[in-house]
Every structure is written in C-alpha cells, then in structure tokens.
C-alpha cells in the first residue's frame, strides 16, 4: 500500500458523526457569545470619524488641491500682475463651493430619516463631516498660505484680505444656506456663492473702491465673517434634524 492509499484508509477510518446534542449546544453558545460581545461593543469616536472619513467622497479634496495648484501656477506666472493677485478671491470661493455636494448629500439622497434612526445622531454625523473637512481644508490652506508667503513673498495681510476673507464669506453663505429655515438646494448655495464671487471681483478690481477700504476695515470684516461662520455652523448642528419629513421624536421603529 502506498502513502496515498494509507492516508485514504486512515481518513476513512476516522469517521466523524456529529451529535445533534453537541450541534445544538454549539448553536446556543454561538448565539450567546455573539449577543454578549455585541452588548459590550460601542463604536468609539475614533472609529466613528474613521467610518465617516470612508463615507466622504475624496474627489472633492483632490479637486481642492488641484485648485490651489492652479492658483499657485497662475500666481507664479503673473507675479507682477496685481489684478491676478486680487482675483484670488474667486478661487477661494470655488475652493469652498467644492465642499457643498458633501454637506448636502444627506438631503439630496433623502437619507436623513435613516441616519436619524442610526446609532449616531444626525448632529454627530454633520459634526464629524465638518470636522473632517475642516481639518483637511485648514491643512491645505495652511500649506498654501505658508508656501505663498515664503516662496512668493506674499504678505500675510494680503493673503488674509485676498484669499481668507472671500473664502470665509463663501463658507458663511454655504452654512447659512444649509441651516436656513427654508429648504434650499445645493444649487441655490452654489448660485449664491457665484454671485458673491462676482460682487467680490467688482469690489476688488475697482481701484477707487479698493483704495477706500483700509486694512483695519478688512480685519473687522474678516472678524465678522468668522463670527458669522461660527454661528452658522452652530445653527447647522442645532437645526439639522428639522429637515426630516416628520419631527425627530415622531419616528417610530
């Protein structure tokens, strides 16, 4: 008898007949173990943020990065052209517009009710998304402003006026539209941002108007924009449940 035959004979001799009693016991214990481990299991904030990060479409961040690269290229190629420098505000508006699809996704996909009934509340989901976008955008803007300041010898005040201020106003428009008492679509937010861009371009390219606004006024305006932004974000988080078809407390399982 060769080795294969011996192994086959051995295999045939070890015939296992599972006992029904043991199978039943295994099923019972398996269920008990699973439900016991489920009771202990709580999703940590870290895991929750990670799950939200996976849910966000990364293409918007890539586009934001590309936008900054385009701006960088334009600024490097036309360093002496003051109007192009002032036109940074338009790019700043576009930069913020790119986060609109993600912020409106819950509403445009009609998934508010589902998320409200899930383990984490809508408020937490919005907060997580804003936090993730905030972290990424602050990182990108810091890198951009830092390199523009060092590499292109931009003054910080100039960057603040021509890039951060229009950017903050656009963010205010977005969050303001999102938390408004009327249910505006993302198209409305985009339209308002574009209108703001046009207004900004008119102000900045009109030399007589631009010359009238001194640095302290810009600073105050920026301060105002930041304050409004904080209020708008707070209102968004506070009111995010009101977009449901029925109020949050009336949802029945």
């Amino acid at each position: 008898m060769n080795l294969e035959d011996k192994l086959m004979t051995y295999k045939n001799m070890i015939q296992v007949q599972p006992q029904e009693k043991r199978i039943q016991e295994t099923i019972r214990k398996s269920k008990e173990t699973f439900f016991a481990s489920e009771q202990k299991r709580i999703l940590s904030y870290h895991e929750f943020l990670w799950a939200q990060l996976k849910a966000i479409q990364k293409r918007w961040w890539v586009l934001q990065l590309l936008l900054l690269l385009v701006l960088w290229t334009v600024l490097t190629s036309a360093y002496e052209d003051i109007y192009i420098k002032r036109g940074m505000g338009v790019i700043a508006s576009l930069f913020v517009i790119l986060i609109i699809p993600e912020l409106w996704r819950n509403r445009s996909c009609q998934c508010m009710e589902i998320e409200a009934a899930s383990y984490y509340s809508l408020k937490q989901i919005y907060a997580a998304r804003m936090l993730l976008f905030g972290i990424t955008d602050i990182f990108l803007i810091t890198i951009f402003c830092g390199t523009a300041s060092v590499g292109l010898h931009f003054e910080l005040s100039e960057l603040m006026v021509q890039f951060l201020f229009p950017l903050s106003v656009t963010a205010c428009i977005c969050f303001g539209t999102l938390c408004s008492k009327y249910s505006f679509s993302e198209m409305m937010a985009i339209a308002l941002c574009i209108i703001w861009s046009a207004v900004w371009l008119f102000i900045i390219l009109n030399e007589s108007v631009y010359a009238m606004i001194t640095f302290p006024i810009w600073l105050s305006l920026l301060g105002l924009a930041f304050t409004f932004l904080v209020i708008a974000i707070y209102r968004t988080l506070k009111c995010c449940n009101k977009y449901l078809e029925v109020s949050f407390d009336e949802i029945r399982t």
Partner: protein
Amino acid sequence: MYSDFLLIRKMKQGDDTSFDLFVRKYYWEISTYCHYHCPDKEYAEDLTQETFVRFFTKLSDYRYKGKTLNYLYTISSNLCKDYFKKIKEIPVEETELIGEIKPEERQMEDILNKILMEQALKQLPDELNEVITLCYFQELKLTEIADTLQISLPLVKYRLKQAKVQLKKLLRKEGKYEFGR
C-alpha cells in the same frame, strides 16, 4: 441554500435561523478537522465548539471575503496548536488503541495502519502535519490551504512534499518498531 455573505449579514443583524444554518453548514468540516488533530473525541468536540464560539465573538469585525471556511480552519488550527502544546508531554495510552482492535485480518491491517499513521502524524512537525490534514483529510485545494495557513502557494507545495517524505520515513520506522517489538 444561503450564501455565506447573506448568512453573515443576517447573523450580524441577529437573525436566529441564520446562526443555526451557519453552524450546521460547517460543523462537520470543523469537527472532522479537530478529530484528525485531537485523538480525544470529547476534546475534539469541545475544540469544534470553541472554534465557533471564537468566530462569533469577533463576528462584528469580520469582513466577508469569500473564504469563511478557511477562516474557521485557521481558528481551529490555532486551537489545536494550543491543545498540542498542552498534551506534548503526555504519552499515548496504548490500552485505548488496543481496545479497538478486532480479530478479522483485514480489520487488523487497517487498525495497524491507523495506529502507525497516528503515531507518524504525531511525530511530524506541526506545520507539515497541518498541510497533510488539510490536503488529504479535509480535501482542500492547495490555494485554499495557502489562504487558510496564510502562506504562499510554493511554500504549501514545499511543505506537502516534505511532509510526504517525512511521513514515509516515519511510517517505515514505526512499522519496523511495531513488528520488531
């Protein structure tokens, strides 16, 4: 018959029937595997049960990739290794083996073959024994063995070849020992 993907999804949702279906679907395979590794029948049953319990403890984190049985084999394999570590020092009780021998000549030969094979398999290094069990007794494909043991396919082939060579040597040695005694 539900696919594993659906079963796992339903189990994660707490569906009672799916637990039943899942355990019954794989109980025989895991039980057989444990019996090949553990001669103590009661203990082999306990190992089978423990395999499923371990699987269900981590079910929430388990992501289905189409190889649930291989994952169960991996759990079972680890449990059997722990068992081997425990019993390595304990000698085989010959009385237990003698009790099973029947007078018929053919059966005598089979029993002798079984004893020799058990002895030889025990003396094989763990990693070679594992490959032989999965290949010949559980009838897994080489790629499935590679997945289960999380090693490369060439290494599976190498271990299988080595296992056969060593098993032949051990069987010859055991045969001489048994007949010479």
